[in-house]
């Protein structure tokens, strides 16, 4: 739960109690306006669009602030509203775009869209059964090896190798430092290689593009 001294929650409390409602609403707006504008800019909207969407967000915030139960942080609630406004806007734009597109039914099929020939299809679809079986067994073994890792190490490895997250994202999600993430990954790979009997220590991967 959020800490009681959270200034936003304190302001919300005052607004809900109708204590200097307008003044406290403005304070809350001042605290978070730029944050919400930045959120929309990060989603790719222009400055003016971001300001308009921020208006929509705060309009909804102040319309429904009395129903905010304060069981999450105000920022969490606010971001949820901003996200909902963002999704509505995307939906609206997609609908506009869809309505505006005219596609000729006579348009020629480009070379890229051409269907592959039956022979090409056959060649690409037939797997080598032996190779497939070996791969499946190896992946099962890897999965089992991962399951045997200490839990935080396993989570870091899964987030990194299965979900493709960056170090700092794993650190944020797991609430640990980036150095700890790196250490878990280093140890994790060593253990996995040891369990699976793959050659290891050929070299070291750099981390320039990983964070």
């Amino acid at each position, binding site marked *: 739960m959020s800490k009681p001294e959270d200034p936003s929650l304190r302001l919300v409390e005052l607004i809900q109690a109708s204590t200097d409602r307008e003044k406290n609403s403005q304070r809350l707006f001042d605290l978070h306006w730029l944050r919400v504008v930045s959120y929309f800019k990060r989603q790719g909207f222009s400055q003016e669009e971001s300001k308009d969407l921020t208006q929509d967000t705060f309009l909804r915030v102040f319309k429904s602030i009395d129903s905010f139960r304060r069981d*999450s942080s105000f920022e969490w609630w606010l*971001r949820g509203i901003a996200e909902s406004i963002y999704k509505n806007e995307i939906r609206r734009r997609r609908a506009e775009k869809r309505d505006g597109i005219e596609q000729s039914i006579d348009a020629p099929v480009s070379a890229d869209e051409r269907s592959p020939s039956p022979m090409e299809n056959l060649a690409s679809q037939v797997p080598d059964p032996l190779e497939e079986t070996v791969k499946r067994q190896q992946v099962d073994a890897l999965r089992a090896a991962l399951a045997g890792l200490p839990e935080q190490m396993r989570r870091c490895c899964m987030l990194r190798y299965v979900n493709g997250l960056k170090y700092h994202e794993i650190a944020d*999600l797991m609430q640990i430092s980036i150095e700890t993430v790196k250490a878990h990954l280093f140890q994790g790979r*060593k253990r996995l290689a040891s369990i699976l009997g793959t050659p290891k220590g050929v070299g070291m*991967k750099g*981390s320039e593009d990983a964070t």
Partner: protein
Amino acid sequence: MTDEPIDPELDGLLDLLAEGGRGGPDPVEHPSAATLSAYHARALPAGEVSRVQDHLVACRQCREQLLEHARFLEPPAEDPAVGTASFERAAEWRRLKERVGEEAGAAAPPPVKPVDDRRRLLRSLRMFQALAAALGALAVGLFLRDVPFRGQARVFSEESLSFGTTRSAPDLKEAQVRLPAVVRIIPEVDYPKYRVEIEPASGKRVQTLELSPSPDGWLIELSAPGTYKIRVLGLKDGRTEPVGKPKELVVVR
């Protein structure tokens, strides 16, 4: 510093695992917003933390929620294009207040109270009474339409009198107007200033008006019945000269 040992075979296997793992469906059940918010605020008990972390490994949606929230809480960059200036924020606040006001004004109409049959009957009775009263008023109005009322919009009868020509000899008893009455006085000789004297035959005080030239003359209201003698004098170089002959006007009810 380098972090991960290079192991092409292991990397190949991890890639295969990733191919199978990515794009899979998220779990059906998710921690509540309150739980995720508390997790982010590091306010969850250890057991629950572990549960949430396991969920995060499996759930792309919740991962994205938390990562986006972390970005949301980062202090916004002081980007001049964003307009951190307080006046801009203040302007946006004013705009928001206007919008809140507009939305409140355009809110749904006040709810209509349900009416029972008795009230409905009473209401139709009242409507009938109102209709009857309106018809009665119309009948009285038609009957009395020629009777002048106090407070009715007044229509003035007007008499024009020209001063200064030799032919404008007084035609004493023919110039007659009905109350409410105005007299338009038109001097036909140019003077920089004029004086108009209106003398009631009843011997009451003479009214004197100093007037500037006006192309349409002057309109003067006469509010009481009686006979009035009207004189126009031209004022020039400290001298006073009569403009035409005096005229008489009779005002009747």
